[in-house]
């Protein structure tokens, strides 16, 4: 009998409308009537906005030349950005000494890269070096005044360099302090707990802009004459303390997600409190807290631009200063677009890095 099929019939290809570009469009953009409507409206808006922007930013833009005369037409004036590029990166750091900044940041790259290699030796030592010794080296490299390096006062630091310093110090200072505060808040010792709670609630209760104002406007009045704390240092301390409070709450969230059995198991094994925290609880809690921590760091990176209001020339500050050069008035759009792009690159990088960390520490019980 020939009508009994002996072999399995080969799978038919999926319908043309379900695969390839067409299928993707159908699934993602035109799946329902309201999605179709949104797609069409968005496409129309993009069509309105993008071509003029492209024309302004690319086609009619001015890329080369001297001074603002080179930007006579209507397009974007990237000559202005080019003219200011070193300043956007280094602020007022003397041109002859800029190699020190480059070197400082170049030192950081291999350290971070080493920490990301799986299963290498001395990781703990390299990590400790990055956290505690590297900042000191970088400080003396940037500030100078030792080993025959000419001193560069912090008032000359600026641009992207300053933004990175603020963000790095904020992160390095806030993370350990935040972890300690989170542990303190969950501690059974009443004094420790209430001090931690008071610290966290105080700093979370005031906006960063207020903290910066306090550090820059009120603090100098309370200090006796002759005692002068560097303006940058004041801002750094303010940012680190402020972020520590936020990190503490994020880490506490991670701690609360750890089942009680883990604490009890650690105790049953005879581990001391520091041991059980370092070996059992924290690795799990921090893993859970990664998305929250990364969000806090991205916020911190963007919040560093608030130092503009205390006259520090970070990337945004230096952009605004450049916009007020009488020779280059009226190129605000270009300046802000460029600064925005740099901020975006770093924040996007941080966000991808967070995703990478999540994948790497993924141990099978994803919630």
């Amino acid at each position, binding site marked *: 009998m020939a009508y009994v099929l002996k072999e399995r019939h080969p799978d038919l290809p999926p319908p043309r409308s379900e695969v390839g570009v067409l299928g993707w469009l159908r699934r993602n953009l035109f799946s329902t009537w309201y999605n179709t409507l949104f797609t069409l409206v968005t496409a129309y808006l993009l069509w309105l906005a993008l071509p003029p922007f492209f024309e302004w930013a690319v086609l009619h833009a001015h890329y080369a030349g001297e001074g603002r005369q080179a930007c006579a037409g209507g397009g974007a004036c990237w000559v202005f950005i080019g003219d200011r590029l070193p300043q956007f990166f280094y602020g007022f750091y003397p041109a002859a000494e800029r190699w020190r900044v480059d070197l400082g940041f170049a030192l950081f790259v291999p350290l971070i890269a080493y920490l990301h290699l799986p299963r290498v030796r001395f990781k703990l030592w390299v990590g400790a070096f990055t956290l505690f010794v590297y900042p000191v080296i970088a400080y003396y490299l940037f500030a100078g005044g030792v080993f025959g390096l000419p001193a560069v006062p912090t008032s000359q630091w600026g641009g992207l360099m300053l933004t990175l310093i603020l963000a790095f110090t904020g992160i390095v200072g806030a993370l350990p302090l935040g972890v300690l505060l989170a542990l303190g808040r969950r501690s059974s010792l009443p004094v420790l707990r209430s001090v931690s709670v008071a610290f966290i609630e105080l700093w979370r209760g005031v906006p960063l802009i207020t903290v910066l104002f306090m550090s820059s406007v009120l603090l100098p009045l309370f200090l006796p004459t002759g005692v002068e704390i560097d*303006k940058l240092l004041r801002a750094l301390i303010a940012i680190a303390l402020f972020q520590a409070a936020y990190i503490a709450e994020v880490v506490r969230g991670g701690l609360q997600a750890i089942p009680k059995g883990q604490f009890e198991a650690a105790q049953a094994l005879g581990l001391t409190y520091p041991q059980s925290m370092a070996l059992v609880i924290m690795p799990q809690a921090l893993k859970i807290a990664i998305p929250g921590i990364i969000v806090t760091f991205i916020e911190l990176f963007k919040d560093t631009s608030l130092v503009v209001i205390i006259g520090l020339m970070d990337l945004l500050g230096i952009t605004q200063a450049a916009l*007020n050069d009488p020779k280059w008035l009226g190129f605000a759009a270009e300046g802000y677009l460029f600064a925005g792009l740099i901020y975006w690159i770093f924040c996007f990088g941080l966000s991808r890095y967070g995703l990478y960390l999540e994948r790497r520490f993924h141990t099978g019980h994803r919630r």
Partner: protein
Amino acid sequence: MKIIKILAASAAIASLSMAANAHAGKTLDAVKAKGYVQCGVNTGLPGFSSVNSQGKWTGLDVDVCRAIAAAVFGDASKVHYTPLTAKERFTALQSGEIDVLSRNTTWTMTRDTSLGLSFTGVNYYDGQGFLVKKSLGVNSAKQLNGATFCIQAGTTTELNLADYMRSHHMKYQAVTFDTSDATAKAFDNGRCDVLTSDQSQLYALRTQLKNPASAVVLPEVISKEPLGPVVRSNDIEWFNLVKWVGFAMKNAEWLGVTSKNVAEMKKSSNPNIQRLLGVSGDFGKMIGVSNDWAYNIVAQVGNYGESFERNVGMDSPLKIKRGLNALWTQGGIQYAPPIR
């Protein structure tokens, strides 16, 4: 017990703040010892203080700092700049972070009397003015009845306008924007008939218009904004030095001494010039510096007129007319007491 503790704490704070005010007469010595003048300037105001692409500060306010350095050290470049925002400027001066504040600061009675600070003079007479399109055919602010005004957010500007319009019985409409760029764009696109702001600002905004020649600044100035350098009140010696640095620049312009001819002028027989340039008399000694102090100022920074034209006047993109800031001999009100 508690009360005693609180009293002790407040006594400690009080003694600290007294210590903060107890360094009279020492600013010049401290400046000479550290080798530079620490000068508070604006973080960026076109023509008054801004950084060029080489990272050098320039502007009318910056020239005050450079002139002080030229007088003290004979070298106008011995200045360290502290860019300051409007909110922190007085604290920076009070706490001793800076030696002199030269940051387009309006001289008012409150500031002069209640902050422990003193204004040493006026280096720019500013005031709120009006920018209108030429095509409107208006040549006086009195003809602005019923006009629409673009205003940059900032309450004094709005209040001054309201006062002025009310006292002249005119109606108006105000459109407010939060940045100067947005204000200029709106004016450019015909969102309003008139743009009002401080005059120095108006000229900077005008350069950003598509066709700067199509707009004019009206002659009326409706508010007083005398801008000048500020120092701590407790150091009369330093106050005198900063004050006379400003006077020297104006006297130099009055006497026709410029950065180009200052070397020849040293041979002049005019006793006023001789006293100014330190050929005769001991005038530098009176303010604690060398007798060629004014010579150094004029040679390295220029006289007041040169500084004005270079930074905000006809040699700059702003093209601000001298107006009130011309010398008293040329119809303005910039006047300096004689050096004798």
